[in-house]
């Protein structure tokens, strides 16, 4: 078996097109994870037990079960409730909700690291809780956890091939279709692997830079 360069060059543009879908799915999923994760983190910190206990239990459940099964669940069950969405939307929601349970933990670590005195001082200055949270606590809690959140963006990116199982035409699905047409799986699958490697290594370097940058900011 030899590597077929002609075939590799033929499938490369199709895979690059699919890379765009992959990146879109990762980014949209990440945005959902960022927003929903914060809501989960806040709900779990809430003093109201009727809110914090069920949300905590559900997040724990989602975090320790496979994304693939959750995707199937959404894909097959949502239409049963009359919600008709494209596979892409379903997949992105699945990714976002799954990783929200991870980002919630990251936010929690960030929020826990802000000293209690900050809350008390803001309280003493008659700030409302919302105002305190927005302009005192968050600006201190977020910068240290930005690199960790960045790592989850890479993790989401690497989980996007799972969307191929629910028929989203991302890189993996396109590679499989190309492979099944010609019975040459080596080239498309290897290219997909390399593209993943390249994008995640570049992102890892960028996140490292961001980490250094934030470190500098904090020291000033």
């Amino acid at each position, binding site marked *: 078996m030899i590597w077929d360069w002609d075939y590799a060059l033929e499938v490369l543009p199709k895979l690059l097109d699919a890379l765009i879908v992959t990146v879109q799915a990762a980014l949209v999923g990440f945005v959902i994870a960022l927003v929903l994760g914060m809501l989960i983190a806040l709900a779990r910190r809430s003093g109201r037990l009727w809110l914090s206990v069920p949300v905590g239990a559900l997040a724990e459940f989602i975090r320790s079960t496979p994304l693939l099964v959750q995707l199937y669940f959404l894909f097959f069950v949502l239409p049963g409730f009359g919600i008709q969405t494209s596979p892409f939307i379903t997949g992105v929601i699945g990714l976002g909700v799954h990783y929200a349970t991870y980002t919630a933990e990251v936010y929690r670590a960030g929020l826990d690291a802000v000293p209690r005195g900050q809350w008390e001082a803001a309280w003493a200055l008659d700030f409302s809780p919302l105002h305190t949270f927005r302009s005192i606590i968050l600006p201190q809690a977020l910068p240290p956890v930005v690199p960790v959140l960045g790592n989850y963006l890479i993790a989401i990116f690497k989980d996007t091939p799972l969307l191929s199982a629910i028929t989203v035409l991302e890189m993996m699905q396109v590679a499989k279709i190309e492979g099944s047409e010609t019975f040459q799986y*080596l080239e498309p699958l290897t290219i997909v692997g390399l593209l993943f490697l390249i994008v995640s290594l570049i992102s890892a370097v960028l996140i490292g830079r961001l980490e250094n940058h934030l470190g500098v900011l904090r020291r000033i």
Partner: protein
Amino acid sequence: MFLPIEFYGNLLQGALITIQITAMAGVLAFVCALVAGLARMSSWRPVRWTAVTYVEFFRGTSALVQLFWLFYALPLFGLSLSPMTVAVLGLGLHIGAYGAEVVRSAVLAIPRGQHEAALALNMSPALAMRRVILPQAVVAMLPPFNNLMIELLKATALVSLITITDLTFQGQLLNTATLKTAPIFMAVLVFYFLIALGITSVFRTLERRLSVGRLKGMAR
């Protein structure tokens, strides 16, 4: 909403396969993590670079892409592995790459004084590592390894895409046969959650056993 009792047998069969793959890949991952983690700290450059390449490569690409590559592309080089071997090998190597970082950080967290004391007692570096450093580091490795094992459990759902009849695959078979989608996938998720709880309780026990006599002031 609940799944009729006669379907639980199939899911249980699938769950046994899932547990089997998790256990075997877990052992492989632990061995890889230990070897690669220690090799990354080697003073011999080729060894260090091999370990870095392994870790970055397997962390940088998607687990599904790795499985597909082993499953579809490797036979083209004349090396055909059974689906089960591909599953254990692929997932073990993937999780092992993450574990290598856990091993490294746990060993680096052991105070230098322990190293120096072992040297002063005329222990060889290998003996010091085996008898002094590792026993202490292993305790610190357990909580992150617990998380990794749950990641591994979740990743085993991917093997359903390379024709292994694991828990997820059984769920899909039942789904196509009965179309009771919501209860089936709910039951599958609950099975995974219960296995995850089982893994956590094993690690809690290990942690208790291994930290006997180490609680007061040693290492940390």
